[in-house]
């Protein structure tokens, strides 16, 4: 062995170690993660990165890094954007791209990519419905949305800086885009074709893993590590296998039989009893309620709504929907979510009061159950807990108020032409970031999804609107924002708008040896580069 050989061999040995990922000390020898998700429709097994939501939001975070993200402690973390600031009027936001950021094909991730990606999302052909909620306020968005142009004038790409100009001031614009829905893909590819993500088109990824195998007929896929990963840590896994599975019971059986390590959707409740270590509550914001249609008879009468609400026992509807033996859940007593920082548990929306309920019905414009027009109700899903909640309510209305003229359908569309007359429907108000004002806005503002959409169909309380419009302009950390949100909630609850169902805690659903699987209010597992398999 001469000196030259020794030096040469040492260099090789050294470089080998430098480029090897430094696995955590308790890592297992086999780093293969087996993921399964239950199917909400075979045809949603896609990996586009552009369509902003649906089931695929759950796994896109393995392939691309979002601009920023809220971690499991609800703190904002840098993603592809390392810095963010706004002008004093909150109309111009500047984001700086991390100098290290690059794609799996080696090219640098630039501001132009951000601009191109968001413009591709705005194009209706990408089938991205939620984008309006994220960047609808950006100058020039309308024109792009109406396909008049492919560019959004309000987004300016300046080297490594992305400047976004807004139509109206928004102090939390940077929070809105901190979600996996807004991940940045390679712009030139996305603009060329919306099928860019299929492996045969060799897409470029900014995340820790890449999609290397995809079988839409079998609903299986495989991820492998990104050789050009740019963050300091990870990726630790050698391979991730992905499989669509039909239902919650099968998911549970697969966990029990050691066939999967992580599940994107909730397995059936039996698993919590048999393998409690799989269950780790994820801090979501939002829960399901039954909302009243204020434009359809008879729920247009607030006294009728009051009667329907007070006839329901909040403790029982919650038990009926989410039996203790099956679910770990919370029982929210107000509209605000317990995970929001200014949640005030002294506020109670209502208590069960059958006498007051009967009195309210008597005092209403119908005078009693016999004159009441037909009530149309739907839990808007086939998930049994929601159905149970609705059945419980229907029985209470019959028992306490004597109402029997109720028509139940699984989904609103089954009412056909009468869909607009549905009186009671179900939805959740979810927030992907922890801001009480935006959360209350979504539920109570006349332009929000609940009030203006198919839940309440044109609920309009101008006092609430004024309060919330003001709150939108307040800095996120200022206590005034919370106070205004609370006042708006108080006025809202006085209008008897909903019946609260309950909040079953969602779990992250991973075996205890799968480490660093995090989930925050954004639902998607974040910081996926940290995931590894420990010895077990």
């Amino acid at each position, binding site marked *: 062995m001469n000196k030259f050989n020794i030096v040469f061999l040492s260099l090789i040995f050294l470089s080998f170690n430098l480029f090897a990922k430094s696995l955590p000390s308790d890592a297992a020898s086999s780093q293969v993660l087996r993921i399964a998700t239950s199917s909400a429709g075979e045809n949603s097994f896609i990996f586009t990165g552009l369509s902003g939501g649906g089931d695929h939001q759950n796994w896109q975070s393995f392939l691309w890094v979002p601009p920023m993200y809220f971690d499991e402690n609800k703190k904002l973390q840098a993603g592809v954007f390392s810095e963010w600031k706004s002008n004093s009027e909150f109309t111009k936001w500047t984001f700086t791209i991390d100098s290290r950021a690059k794609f799996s094909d080696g090219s640098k991730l630039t501001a132009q990519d951000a601009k191109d990606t968001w413009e591709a999302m705005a194009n209706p052909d990408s089938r991205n419905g939620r984008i309006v909620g994220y960047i609808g306020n950006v100058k020039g968005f309308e024109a792009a949305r109406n396909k008049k142009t492919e560019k959004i004038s309000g987004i300016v790409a300046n080297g490594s800086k992305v400047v976004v100009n807004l139509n109206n001031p928004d102090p939390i614009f940077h929070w809105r885009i901190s979600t996996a829905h807004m991940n940045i893909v390679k712009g030139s590819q996305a603009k060329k074709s919306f099928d860019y993500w299929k492996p045969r088109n060799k897409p470029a990824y900014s995340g820790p893993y890449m999609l290397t195998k995809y079988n839409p007929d079998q609903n299986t896929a495989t991820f492998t590590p990104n050789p050009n990963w740019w963050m300091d840590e990870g990726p630790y896994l050698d391979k991730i296998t992905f499989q669509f599975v039909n239902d*919650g*019971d099968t998911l*549970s059986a697969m966990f029990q039989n050691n066939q999967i390590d992580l599940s994107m959707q909730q397995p*059936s*409740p*039996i698993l919590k*009893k048999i393998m409690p270590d799989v269950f780790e509550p994820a801090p979501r914001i939002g829960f399901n309620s039954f909302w009243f249609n204020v434009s359809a008879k008879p729920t247009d009468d607030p006294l009728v709504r009051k009667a329907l609400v007070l006839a329901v026992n909040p403790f*029982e509807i919650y*038990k*009926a929907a989410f*039996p203790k*033996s*099956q679910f770990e859940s919370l029982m929210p007593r107000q509209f605000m979510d317990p995970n929001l920082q200014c949640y005030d548990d002294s506020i109670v929306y209502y208590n069960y009061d059958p006498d007051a309920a009967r009195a309210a019905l008597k005092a209403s414009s119908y005078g009693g159950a016999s004159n009441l027009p*037909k009530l149309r109700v739907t839990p808007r899903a*086939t998930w*049994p807990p929601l*159905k*149970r909640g*609705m*059945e*419980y309510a*229907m*029985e209470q209305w*019959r*028992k306490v108020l004597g109402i029997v*003229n109720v*028509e*139940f*359908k*699984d989904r609103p*569309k*089954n*009412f*056909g*032409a*009468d869909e607009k007359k549905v009186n009671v429907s179900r939805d959740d108000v979810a927030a992907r970031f922890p801001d009480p004002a935006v959360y209350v806005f979504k539920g109570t503002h006349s332009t929000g999804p609940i009030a203006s959409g198919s839940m309440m169909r044109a609920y309009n309380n101008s006092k609430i609107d004024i309060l919330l419009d003001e709150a939108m302009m307040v800095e996120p950390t200022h206590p005034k924002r919370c106070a205004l949100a609370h006042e708006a909630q108080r006025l809202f609850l006085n209008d008897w708008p909903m019946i609260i169902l309950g909040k079953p805690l969602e779990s992250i659903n991973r075996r205890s040896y799968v480490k660093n699987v995090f989930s925050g209010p954004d639902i998607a597992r974040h910081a996926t580069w940290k995931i590894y398999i420990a010895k077990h």
Partner: protein
Amino acid sequence: MGDLKNKSKSLRDIALKRLLNNYLALVGFVIVIIFFVFAIFGTILAPYDFLSQNIDRALEGPSKDYILGTDPMGRDVFSRMVFGARTAAIVAFTTTIISLILGVFIGTIAGFSGGKIDAFLMWITDITMSVPGLLLAILINATIKPPISSLFDALYQSTENTIFLNTYMIDFVIVFGAIALISWPSYARIVRGQILSVKQQIYVEAAVSMGANLTHLMKRHLIPNSIGPVVVAVTQGIGGAILLESSLSFLGVGVQPPNASWGSMLSDSLTLWRSFPHLMIVPAITIGIIQIAFIFLGDGINDALNPKQTRR
């Protein structure tokens, strides 16, 4: 003529005697009778109102208070099963009677008319048989049911007749009526087959006796001969209809809450049965027993009316 009458009477007696000796068929018969008793008088026999909930006693196994346990809403499973018998009976009747009437009607016309009309009707029959029933029911539920529901509502608005208000009936009429509309081919074929075979015999007889009343002879031979296969087909059809209702409920089509059906109880149990098996076992076994009962009864009737097969 009188001779003929006596002959058929004793054939009937023999058939009945044979039926009564077939133990399986008897058991089936008894079960079917019990089923219908519960279906008709159910609400009187049930210990609890099938609607009344008691959340505190939810998801309990069989006990002194609740013979078959309670469901997730605290409703008595036994009482709901009894109500479900009514649902099952209505489903079975709706589909069977509609398809029987349609099938016999079409089969008779086809058999008697012959020629082009017969060919056309057989064409319709074959097409109808080739449509997969389950998929058709789901398709109808997804497409036609909403507009028809609205139609019923509009009819109520204009006539104020509460029959249009009954959502229970609307579910049945639309979905199970649809099933009935595609189940008639088997009855049509049986009837037509009988007519054709009798026709063959008639021509021979007519050639011999010259001038005897064709229709009268058809009636004399046709009805006794076709009752057998039709009855067997009906018993099989009823069992099949009940199974079909449970399949449709599993797929989310059919009876809606708070009405109970065995099928919807089964599909509601699918996420809970691992912790509360009684919720699945009770409706599943009941459906199974009723199926078996109808099959044994049908087989027994068939054996009784076709003595050739059992003479050994």
